[in-house]
């Protein structure tokens, strides 16, 4: 295990403070989690910001499935919820939240998806883990933990909301039968 529940909690607290610092407060902030695990992470960050600033930050989710660049290569996937907060994102500072940053393709898809939803003043990226191996010119603004990995390894993020436990671990190569 690389990060346990307390590590994750500390990382999120730090990210929350960094967001507030960078944004000079919570005004005009919108947190959009990328399903699945980006969504509970966004909610946790929002809770921390609220505790510090006393302001409810709008939280939503942004599914990027239909914006993926590998749709033609893989079996169709079920769509996950997209919920844009009622205030929309026009002129807001949107912080995209995801669990792992890897190739960068998910974030590229998310930026495309965001463009179809509205025109934010700025888009920032917060991730719990950055494992490297970028394939696109994308970097995170807020990183919980930089985690150098080999390409054959698999980073597994588990969260209480989705997996009953908070933990980040590095596993060996996956079973090839997995489809």
């Amino acid at each position, binding site marked *: 295990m690389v990060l346990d529940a307390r590590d994750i909690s500390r990382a999120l607290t730090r990210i929350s403070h960094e967001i507030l610092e960078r944004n000079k407060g919570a005004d005009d902030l919108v947190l959009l989690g990328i399903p699945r695990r980006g969504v509970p992470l966004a909610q946790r960050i929002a809770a921390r910001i609220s505790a510090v600033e006393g302001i409810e930050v709008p939280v939503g989710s942004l599914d990027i499935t239909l914006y993926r660049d590998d*749709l*033609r290569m893989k079996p169709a996937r079920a769509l996950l919820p997209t919920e844009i907060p009622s205030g929309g994102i026009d002129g807001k500072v949107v912080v995209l939240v995801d669990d792992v940053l890897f190739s960068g393709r*998910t974030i590229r898809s998310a930026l495309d998806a965001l463009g179809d939803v509205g025109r934010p003043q700025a888009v920032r990226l917060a991730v719990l883990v950055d494992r490297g191996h970028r394939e696109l010119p994308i970097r995170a603004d807020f990183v919980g933990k930089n985690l150098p990995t080999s390409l054959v390894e698999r980073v597994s993020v588990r969260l209480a909301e989705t997996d009953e436990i908070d933990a980040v671990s590095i596993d060996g190569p996956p079973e090839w039968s997995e489809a």
Partner: protein
Amino acid sequence: MKRHLLSAADLTRDDAMLVLKTAEELRSLADRPIKKLPALRGRTVVNLFFEDSTRTRISFEAAAKRLSADVINFSAKGSSLSKGESLKDTALTLEAMGADAVVVRHGASGAPHRLAHSGWVRSSVVNAGDGTHEHPTQALLDAFTMWRHLGKDGARSGDNLEGRRVAIVGDVLHSRVARSNALLLQTLGAEVTLVAPPTLFPVGIDTWGVETSYDLDAVLPKADVVMMLRVQRERMNASFFPTAREYSRRYGLDGKRMRALQDHTIVMHPGPMVRGMEITADVADSDRSVIVEQVTNGVAVRMAVLYLLLSGANGSDHHGEAPESETDA
């Protein structure tokens, strides 16, 4: 899901629920400023209509375009049965144009099946209504509409239509909508009762696994959904029923009958309606009526179907990609 959607029977319960849930996510697109998704960019969807059906065609067209597919509308009305070769020749033409999906409406039952299984085309075939056989996307949008009203949150058991009572009333014999709905709704666990005069039931209806009734008034109070089917006046010329008036009196849904429904019961119609025949205007325009919503839902459901059929290589491998974190791409 299978590669083609020819019959509602092609869908397992998981397949059908996947379509409904996908449609639910896609439905929200209508509320966004840009009503377009890039999912099928570069794909070509052909609407091959051998029969006039503007509403079904534009529904598929809107669905394909919202997913960024290129859409070719091919209207071949009148050439269908006069010379049978035309279906094949048309199919070969479409194949040559590189169609990824063919949405076909045809007056002959089984024409989409022929198209899919004759070796004429390699593309996915979606049945948009064939003769008196099936209309699976209509059944999906009907089920989606029911699910939104009755299934999603207030389901009695699970996240589907389990145990819901659906009455489908009218010309079952000639209705592809009735066939597809009877199949799909049973897959989703609903209890279906078909209501018609005996002349408008097909032979062998007892093997469909549905209830049947000749008595609309006995069925209405128990129904959660009442779906009225179009009844063409010409049917009375073939002695299926004596007069339009007698049909309406016995099988039409009017204000008086509507009052016998439970509070939550919704009224549906696949359209086009024959007002005054199977349904009166006050029912069609009432709060219970979800007929307009069915049209809206049609686009979302057809988007879901096209997305699920067309994205992804059919059972192909992962192209040797490196392993990756689950949510990263």
